[in-house]
């Protein structure tokens, strides 16, 4: 961060508003997906989704601040332009950054749920007990299939949840850029 000599009235209020909007959207969407796919119950999936989304937002900010301090001057000027004057044409780098963000948040959310269950001393994955309950009067093959089907696949659920919330946020961003393009440049 460059040294600050005088302070201005330029406040990041829009950034905060957009952040809150995206955060609430992502939490709601991901809670729905987690509830659907993992059968956690509404409250629990809401809590999980809120925790991992807050965590990934905070980690995202910290990564941003870290990267910003290493940026070369030309890249920082580009960043300054996007932050202060909006984005009108989306360069390929932004797609790359978006994709990297998707993968990183996915890994972080998966790990975040793991940590959260460690903190909460919980083990929601029905592993040993269910597997030891053989269903009677069914063929052996069917048994295996059923148990594989019933086992909630957490990485897949988190991947879907993340994908849905990213799509929703991207749609909003596309609308935003399109609206911005309609306004003529002063």
């Amino acid at each position, binding site marked *: *961060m*460059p*040294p*600050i*000599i*005088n*302070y*201005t*009235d*330029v*406040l*990041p*209020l*829009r*950034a*905060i508003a*957009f*952040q809150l909007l995206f955060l609430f959207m992502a939490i709601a969407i991901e809670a729905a997906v987690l509830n659907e796919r993992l059968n956690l119950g509404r409250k629990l999936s809401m*809590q999980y989704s*809120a*925790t991992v989304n*807050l*965590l990934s*937002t*905070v980690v995202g*900010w*910290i990564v941003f*601040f870290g990267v*910003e301090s290493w940026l070369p001057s030309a890249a*920082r*000027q*580009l960043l*300054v*332009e996007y*932050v*202060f*004057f*909006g*984005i*009108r044409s989306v360069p390929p780098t932004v797609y790359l950054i978006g994709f990297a963000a998707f993968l990183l948040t996915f890994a972080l959310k998966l790990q975040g749920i793991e940590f*959260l269950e460690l*903190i*909460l*001393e919980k083990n929601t994955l029905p592993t040993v007990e269910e597997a030891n309950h053989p269903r009677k009067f069914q063929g052996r093959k069917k048994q295996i299939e059923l148990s594989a089907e019933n086992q909630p696949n957490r990485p897949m659920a988190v991947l879907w949840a993340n994908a849905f919330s990213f799509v929703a946020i991207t749609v909003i961003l596309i609308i*935003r850029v399109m609206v*911005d393009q309609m*306004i003529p*440049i*002063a």
Partner: protein
Amino acid sequence: MKDLFNSIRSYLTPKDPASWQTFILLSLFSVVMAAFMSPTAQNIVSSFGWFFLIVAVWWFVYGKDIQTALTFNAIFIKVFLGPWIISTLIVLAVFGSWSGFGDLVGVAPPAFISVAPIAAIIALAPKFIKSSKDKTPEFTIPAVKDRQGMVLFFLSHLLIACWFQFYFLLQGWLNLYPSLMAEDFSRSSFVVRVQPSIQVSRGREVLNAAESDLRDRLNNQSWSAIERWLFESKVSNQWITDLESNVQSRLRNKLGGGEMDLWSLSGKVDADPYDSGAYYNLVLNATWKGPTATQAPHTVSKRCELIPKRMFNRRTKSTIPEATVIGTLNCADVKDAASFIKKV
């Protein structure tokens, strides 16, 4: 007046030796004592004063009535301001200094950024403490049912700290490139200006520096030397590169000198319309190559005139005064080509 004093006094008189009033009085006592001490001792004693004050306020805000008075209903949750007050005091004690007090520069960004996480730690601290059988506090791991809420609480305070940090990042950028303040931020998805005010871009300063540099070079030179200089300036652009580097070295150490590389100077010398050599026109352009709202570089220009001036100086015992012709540089004020200034 006396009643007020008495009521304050009765409010501050400890009902119990172990109460917040005791700590307030201890804090006041430390401050009074510190006033009479040498600087080193003063530092130690005044930090004790801060410590007692923080303990007293901590005790005070967790009092029964005070806690309900300081709790506000946000949309989803109840927000208790007590931890924020304590954390502000702690930050002031750690980062604040009396010399730079009052202006924001004195309180460093780390202070603002750490307020929210410290508030979260203060608010969560009681969950880590339980009283044992003999009424002494003891460290404990929070109950399982509380943990989910604690994690969310702490993370949301970290997010607030990130927002503070982002504000300071923006200020850092604006200090690096002060000319940005002359631009229109209405398209941004990140920032708003609370009080949009007209701010002239720094192109004016750049051109003024260029003008005074030229003035140093041309004023009071003989007209023939100036005409030779003008002729050379038509042939090569060396003079404008020299001027640019002079201006850059002149302004670099001033406020926001980091953006100097983004201003480029260009200039052109013209004879008067009839090419009579009576005077010369000089146009100086400063072009901002940094980020702009319009995505096009904008140019600020200044028009100058070089006029010959006949100077007479009569020598003693001489009937005819000697005439020398020198040049003078007259410049108009800056005209800003960008239209956004009128609009704001």
